[in-house]
């Protein structure tokens, strides 16, 4: 069935492995940035200020209503011109790599989704949490880091897991801007060897397995974040047995 010699096949597998590494780097970098900015934007947009609310609405509506692919293209093609406009001559010399454009675009798009989740989670927290922290004279920074955000994270976790797996499936779009990631390597290998099924199914399985492993980790994280809600360690076992 295979018209390939083993060394050739191993060579393509190595290329796929390198591509997979790039895909994962791109995904993890974008998710980390989107999470950081998402939490910040989520907190900032809790302000009732009209201007803040207006800006948030426009930002969220645009980036939730436009395909990520177009945002990637816009930054990849137009990024240099945008940098030149903002930073003047210093920015004009910077060339935008596909990787950089991908990270920037995915961060901008998914910051909107994560900020929306964080806003919702903080909004669902009882107001007593804020009042209690204030009554105990806890400084604002400590209140956010130790009281509000850990609880908000618990509420936002199911949504964050959704964003995680959805964003993973959108990272291959950056290959259309010329990034030699997993999908691009699979396409090259499939075209050269005339074995499209082997390479494309292997690539698909890579995404499925990675997301399955990380979802298991997310379940563990959920149990850990809910540890404050469990009164005794036995309660969960009792529930399982019942």
């Amino acid at each position, binding site marked *: 069935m295979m018209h390939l010699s083993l060394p050739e096949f191993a060579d393509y597998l190595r290329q796929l492995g390198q591509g997979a590494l790039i895909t994962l780097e791109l995904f993890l970098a974008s998710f980390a940035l989107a999470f950081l900015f998402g939490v910040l934007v989520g907190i900032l947009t809790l302000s009732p200020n009209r201007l803040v609310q207006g800006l948030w609405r426009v930002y969220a*509506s*645009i980036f939730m*209503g*436009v*395909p*990520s*692919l*177009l*945002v990637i*293209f*816009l930054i990849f*093609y*137009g990024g240099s*011109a945008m940098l030149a*406009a903002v930073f003047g001559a210093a920015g004009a010399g910077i060339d935008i790599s596909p990787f950089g454009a991908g990270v920037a675009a995915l961060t901008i798009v998914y910051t909107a*989704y994560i900020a*929306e*989740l964080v806003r919702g989670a903080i909004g*669902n*927290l*009882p*107001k*007593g949490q804020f009042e209690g922290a204030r009554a105990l004279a806890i400084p604002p920074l400590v209140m956010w880091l130790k009281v509000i955000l850990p609880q908000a994270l618990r509420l936002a976790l*199911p*949504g964050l*897991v*959704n*964003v995680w797996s*959805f964003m*993973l*499936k*959108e*990272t*291959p*779009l950056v*290959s*259309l801007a010329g990034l030699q990631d997993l*999908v691009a390597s*699979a*396409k090259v290998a*499939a*075209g050269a060897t*005339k074995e*499209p*099924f082997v390479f*494309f*199914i292997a*690539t*698909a399985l890579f*995404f*499925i397995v990675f*997301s*399955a492993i990380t979802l298991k980790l997310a379940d563990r994280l959920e149990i850990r974040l809910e540890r404050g809600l469990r009164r005794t360690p036995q309660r969960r076992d009792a529930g399982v047995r019942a």
Partner: protein
Amino acid sequence: MNALPVDLALAWDSLPALLRGLQVTVLITALPLVFGLALAFPLCFARMSPRRWLALPAELFVVFFRGAPVLILLYLVYYGFGQIKALREGPLWVLFGSAFGCAILAFSLNHAAYMVEVLRGSLNAVPHGIVEASEALGISRRNVFIWVKMPLAIRYGLKAYQNEVVSFTKGTAIVSVVTITDLTAVANSIFEQTYDPFTPILCAAALYWAFVNVLRIGFDLWGRWLDRHNAVPPQEQAQQRAAVAASAGEIPVPAPRRRSGFRRPVL
């Protein structure tokens, strides 16, 4: 430096081409929505069946076509099926031979896999007592499904369905990789002709945004129509608002966490 990054004359000139691209995008969204939904029903029944030999293949279908990126599915169908000799000579070549047919097939499979989960979640959310009550009244299982379970499931799952339709619509922007000239492909070709990185892509983005928001408004109207028996007349609305304002001084009670049986896709 021009203050506006958009070249209005170019935008006006490229509008007809972009609108033709939008037509293709609408078509390539609408057909998989229909086929995918039609495919999702039998798959969902198989997935929910207590028989392992029915449930397992359906589950594997969902895991594969939901877990793989759409771009891979598109490549798999477009480059993969062309390699099968039996297919090339068979009557189905009409479908697999054209880029359009391949794209529709790949998108339909992907949408069907997502819809199986949406349907399953919505059907599981229907309270069991209602179904038991209907059965106790001697209504046939088919009629219980059509007249009792489905109407409720549609209401429970509408938001999840909207999210899936919207994210699916945005996902169709990749069809240009298999030579279909959709909205994104038109914008790209205008960019290649003019080297204007902003005008064509921003115009295409505006059209996508409009399309997505038309869908959103449509779903909102649909949801309001489904919920019309709960619609509050204007004078009662005013009373409720006054009551809420009066109770605003009280300690707000956090809403109980809803335990829904499925995770809604957020996107």
